[in-house]
Structure formats: C-alpha cells, structure tokens
C-alpha cells in the first residue's frame, strides 16, 4: 500500500518525470521473464491444443496440418479403447485416491500427537515422494511379478494362491493404484498435518471438557476444521489421477496398458495415439477431452464443498 505513494515523493529533480515513468513500468520488467516463457511454453500450447485437435497432424510431418473439423472427436467417441481408458482412469483413480486420502488423514492425526521422534516420522513418510514415477514403478512391477514376485511369495507362505498382478483386470489396476498410493500418502498426510496445526488447541480443550472422546474430537473438531484442506487434496488428487501416465506405462513397459488394455489410462491412451500411432491430432482431441473432464470434476468438487458448507451452517 505504502508502495503506491511513489508519485508523492518530492519531484524537484528535473530528471524525476522520466524516472517516474520508468518506475511505473519497472514492475512489468520483474514479471517479464516469467510471463514471456510462460506464454510461449505454458499458455500457448494449452490453447493451441484445441486448434490442433481439429486437424489431421502426423508425428513425422508436424508442419502439415489438414482441417478435419470434429472428425478426431467423433472417431474418439466411436473407439471402444477410448471408453475403456476412460473407465480405467475412473476405477484406478478411485482405488488409488480414496484409500490414500483416508490413510493420510489417519496418519496425519497420529503425527499431530505430541511424540518423540516426530520429525523422523514426517521425513520417513515423505521419502516415497522423493522417488520418481519410473523408479517406484519398476520396483513395484518387480514386487508384483507373477512367478517370482515377493508379494505372491508372501501370499504363498500364508497359504493363498498367487495372483496374476499383470494380466488380471482388477489385480493389475490394484497394482498400479498401489504405486500411486505408496508415493502420495505421506505427502497428503503432511498437507493434512499442516491443516490440523492451524486448528486452535482451545477447541480440543473445550471439547474434552464437554466429555468428548478422542474419536468424537477427531470427528467433530478435526474433520470440520480440515474441510478446506480436504477439498484441496481431493481436487489435486483428482487432477493427478485423471492424467496418470508413468505408472501404467512402465508397469509392464508398453503403451497399450496390458495385453487387453486392462489398465490403460487416458494419459497412456493419449501417448499411444500420438507417439505409437503417430496421430497427433487425435492425441490433441484426447487432451482436450481430459481437460474438459478435469474442469467438470473440479466444478463438481466445488459444488459439493459449497453444499456441505451450507448444510453445516
């Protein structure tokens, strides 16, 4: 606020008017490095995707674009593999996000206790976040191996029959979801923990005085106080799940998402259209559909959150 008073500074110096104009433009100079690159490599591609999606563009000849109108979209909607990928994205998204956020909430609650070694636990929870998609997926693919994987060996030790974690539809989707869950649970736990620490301690004290058990405190103090944070994590996780790519690509190492595309996601389908089948125009149509999907999901989240708030107050 005080900054705007630049114009009120004494202007006795004859050089001042020029300096004042330079001063008014200077903020844009500070923004320029960001916005120039952001416009070129961030905003422009995003918007141009819509234009590309109305053309036939092949990977090998990207400078040639032929107008085809909505054809890429009609083909997309007629392709059973698109619907398959959409369905898989949804099921993998639910299986990886819902348990993950619930576990993160529980862990955050425990991490919020006054504990010896609390910062050790926090760092330990975040370790998976420090690994890459590629590394995490290769390790889990090994653990989930059908014949010699450790998980099937453990199942065998307790007398269960082995599971084909790659060929089975539910089993493979569970495997892919496990990678996502492992990598992101600790991260979300920390986000929740940050939110919990912003809840005033007096609320717990007065709840305790009123005779609320710990579970009741968690339900009636922690969860309502955390609602904005929960909405935030749900939105971010939903966006992440919508564009899941690296895990299904490397789970068995092909862009098809399994022999019968049993765990092919939209992100992987986009990559397959563009870089396996060379149809960049069609891939752009997939990207635009994903974008619309994300917008719809974000609006849905916002609507649910708004309604919850209204019924609460």
């Amino acid at each position, binding site marked *: *606020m*005080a*900054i*705007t008073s630049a114009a009120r500074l004494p202007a006795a110096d004859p050089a001042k008017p020029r300096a004042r104009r330079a001063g008014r433009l200077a*903020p*844009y*100079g*500070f*923004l320029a*490095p*960001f916005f120039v690159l*952001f416009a070129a490599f*961030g905003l422009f*591609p*995003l918007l*141009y*995707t819509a234009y*590309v999606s109305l053309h036939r563009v092949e990977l090998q000849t990207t400078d040639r674009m032929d107008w085809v109108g909505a054809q890429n979209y009609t083909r997309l909607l007629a392709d059973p593999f698109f619907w398959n990928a959409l369905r898989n994205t949804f099921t993998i998204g639910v299986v990886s996000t819902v348990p993950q956020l619930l576990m993160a909430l529980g862990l955050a609650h*425990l*991490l919020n*206790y006054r*504990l010896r070694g609390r*910062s050790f*636990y926090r*760092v*330990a929870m*975040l*370790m998976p976040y*420090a*690994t*890459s*998609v*590629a*590394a*995490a997926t*290769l*390790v889990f693919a*090994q*653990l989930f191996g059908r014949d*010699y994987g*450790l998980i099937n*060996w453990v199942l065998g030790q307790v007398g269960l029959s082995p599971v084909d974690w790659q060929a089975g539809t539910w089993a493979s989707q569970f495997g892919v979801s496990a990678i996502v869950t*492992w990598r992101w649970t600790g991260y979300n736990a*920390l*986000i929740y923990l*940050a939110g919990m*620490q912003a809840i*005033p*301690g007096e609320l*717990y004290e007065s709840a305790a005085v009123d005779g609320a058990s*710990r579970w009741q405190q968690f339900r009636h103090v922690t969860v309502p106080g955390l609602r904005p944070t929960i909405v*935030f994590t749900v939105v971010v996780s939903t966006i992440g799940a*919508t564009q899941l*790519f690296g895990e299904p*690509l490397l789970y068995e*190492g092909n862009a098809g998402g399994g022999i019968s595309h049993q765990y092919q996601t939209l*992100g992987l389908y986009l990559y397959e259209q563009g870089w396996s089948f060379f149809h*960049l125009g069609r891939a*752009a149509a997939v990207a635009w559909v994903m*974008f619309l999907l994300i917008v719809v999901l974000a609006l849905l989240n916002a609507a649910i959150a708004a309604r919850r708030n209204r019924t609460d107050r």
Partner: protein
Amino acid sequence: MRPNPRSPLHGGPLVHVVLITATLVFAFPFYWTLVAASRSNAELSSASPSLTPGPNLLHNIGAALEQAAIGDALLNSLIVAATVTAGVVLSSTLAGFAFAKLRFRGRGLLLAVTVATMMIPPQLGVIPLFMVIVRLDLQNTLPSVILPSLVSAFGVFFMRQYLVQALPDELVEAGRVDGASLLRIFRSIVLPAARPGMAVLGMLTFMATWNDFFWPVVALSSQNPTVQVALKSLGQGYVPDQSIVMAGTLIGTLPVLLVFGVLGRQIVGGIMQGAVKG
C-alpha cells in the same frame, strides 16, 4: 512450521506402533531395491527369494551404467535440474516480489491467470509443445526439456505468498525514500529476505525436475536421455534382467534420496508451509 506448542494430544505406545509399521511399509521398497540390485537375476527368479542384500551390487551397477548409458543420463539430469532450478527460483522471486509488494495496472488479473493455470496440468499442452520443439529443431536435445520448465506458476505463487509475510513494506519504502532504484532494492533488500523461501522452492523444483517423466519421455530418445528416460529403456528390454533394472533404479534414486536425507526437515517444512497458505 513449528510444532504447535498447545497440541493437546499426547501419543501413547500404540501411536508409535502404528507409525513404525507405516514407516516400515514406506521404507520397504527402498530396502527391496537394494536387495534386488545386489543379487543375480537367477537368484531373483527362484521360488524362494532372498530377503537380504547379496554380493553383486557393484557388478550390477556396472552393467546398468553400460546398458542404458546411465552415466551420461545422470549428467544430463544434473544439467537439466540445475538449470531449471536456477531459472524457476530467479523468475519466481522476481515475479513474486512484483505481485507481493508492487502496485501496477493489471496486477489482479495477471495473478489470477497465474493461479488459475496452476490447476491445469501441463501434460494437456504436450502436443503443441512437441510441435514447437520440432519446429525449433530442438528435439532430442536438453534445451527441449529445459525451456518449457524454466518458469513455474506454482513457483511465482509460492514466492509471492512467502514475500507478503517475510518482507516488511517499510523496508521497501525505506529503500525508495533513499532513492534506490527498484533493481537495487531487489538486490539488496528483497533477495536477502527471500533467501529461505528461495531455498525451499529450489529444493522442491530440483526434486520435481529430476523426477519428471512424461515430457522428457516425449522429447528425448534413449540416445540422449535423462535418468528417468534411461530407466524406462532399461526396463523395456525383451527379457529385462531384473537385478540390473533395480541397480539402475538405485542409481537414479540415490541422488535425490541423499538430498532428502540432508535437507529432509526443510523439505517437509516447505511442503507444509505451501499447503497451509495454498
């Protein structure tokens, strides 16, 4: 974020049991990477797997370095991550300062655009981005990976939030009264105040860039890969030798884990800080 001194809850032994169990679950894949990377493929493909590290670690690491050009890939990743980190931290601090402390026409709109695009995954722009890279003849070169990542909307927002609190208005005003130019104010007042925030943003950016997968896979081939792209090709042989794949995974993960081991608490603090104010 400092622990809440008024936290009313005290943890008993049961809390520790649950947290230690969770820690072991989170840590196990790391341990298993070490076990698998130090065994032979034959040992891994046996009916009863070995659960302790074996003697083949150096041999497998050597084989991984040879098979997927992982040495070059490490150097590439280091160049990319360091350049991107420097670019993001600098451009974000400049823009974050302008958004936090300067008044100018269009400020609200520009900030809104920046924040709004944080919600749009950059993945959705890959096709035109790829066409741009081809047009510029940058395909399969490191600049193709560096250029699109040099700035980050999240970084700008993060630095803005940081500077709103960390940099008192009076300091900037005092600099103005003394007749210092904005650039001078930036150098001698803003940068020192911004340093802790820049450090956190730098660590987060380095980790994210090192681990980035989708765009590098699209833009680079296995001839000139980053570590993550090299890992992809390592895992995609006809019959991948699992012990060598795991050795490569270990090499690709180790640098970030080392950074994390040293700076873990600050990274945790940075993520929690970004979360509360996000």
